C-alpha cells in the first residue's frame, strides 16, 4: 500500500496599526511572547532550540518544540513547530513576515508542514521529509 503525506498550511494575515519595529519586539522578546503566545525560552538566534508551554489539554502535554531557522530583524522570522499531541503530530514551520504599510504593519503568519499517514512506508516517509525540507529551503532561499 502506498501512502502519501498530506501537506497542510494555515495563513493568518492582518494589518496592525503599529510600526514593524514594535511588532518585531512582540514576536521576539521572551516576556512579551509570554503575554500573547505562550511561556517560552525563545531567543532570536538561528539554531536556538526552544519550547512553548501551555496548559495541558486532554492527551496533550501542552509543549511545542521549536528551533529557530531564520531571523531577519523587523522583516522575517521562522522556526520549526512540532507538538506532541498524537492527532496534531505534524512537522511544521511557522514563518512571520512583516511589511511596513502607510498605517502600520501587515503581519503575516504562515504555518506549513506535512502529516504522514500512520504505518507509512519508506517512500511515504521520504516524500514527506522532502516536502518538509523543500519548504525549509524555500524559506531559507527567500532570505539569501
Amino acid at each position, binding site marked *: 500500500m502506498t501512502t502519501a503525506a498530506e501537506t*497542510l498550511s494555515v495563513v493568518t494575515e*492582518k494589518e496592525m496599526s503599529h510600526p514593524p519595529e*514594535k511588532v518585531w519586539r512582540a514576536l521576539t522578546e521572551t516576556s512579551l511572547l509570554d503575554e*500573547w*503566545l505562550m511561556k517560552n525560552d525563545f531567543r532570536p538566534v538561528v539554531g536556538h532550540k526552544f519550547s512553548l508551554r501551555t*496548559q495541558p*489539554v486532554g492527551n496533550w502535554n501542552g509543549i511545542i518544540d521549536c528551533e529557530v531557522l531564520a531571523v531577519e530583524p523587523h522583516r522575517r522570522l521562522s522556526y520549526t513547530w512540532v507538538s506532541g499531541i498524537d*492527532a*496534531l503530530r505534524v512537522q511544521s514551520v511557522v514563518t512571520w513576515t512583516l511589511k511596513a504599510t502607510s498605517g502600520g504593519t501587515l503581519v503575516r503568519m504562515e504555518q506549513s508542514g506535512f502529516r504522514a499517514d500512520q504505518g507509512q512506508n519508506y517512500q511515504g516517509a521520504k516524500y514527506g521529509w522532502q516536502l518538509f525540507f523543500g519548504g525549509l529551503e524555500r524559506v531559507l532561499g527567500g532570505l539569501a
Partner: protein
Amino acid sequence: MRTRPDAVFRSLADPTRRALLERLMQKGEHTVGALTGHANVSQPAVSKHLGVLKAAGLVEDRRDGRETHYRARPAGFAPLFGWLTFYSAFWNDRFTRLEDLLKRMGP
C-alpha cells in the same frame, strides 16, 4: 451536536472551565453542588461555566429529580483534532492577543 472549533477553543481558554472539565474527565459525573465544592467560585458562576462548556459540546447533563448531573463529553474535542481547524482558530485567537499587547506596549 455540531460545534465550531473556535467555540471549543474559546471555551477552553478560561482556567476555571478547564479545571471543571479536567475534574469531570478524571472523576466522572458530578452535580453542580459537588463541583462548586472543588472550585474557587460561586455556584451560579460554576453553572454559567458549565453552560459554556455544554454549548461548546464538551460536557453533557442529565436531570435526576431536582439535581442536574454533568459529565465530560470527549467527542466534543473532535473539532480540535483537525490540524487545520485547530491552528486556524489558534492563530486567530493569538493575533487578537498580539494586537491587544501592542496596544498596551505604548509607542
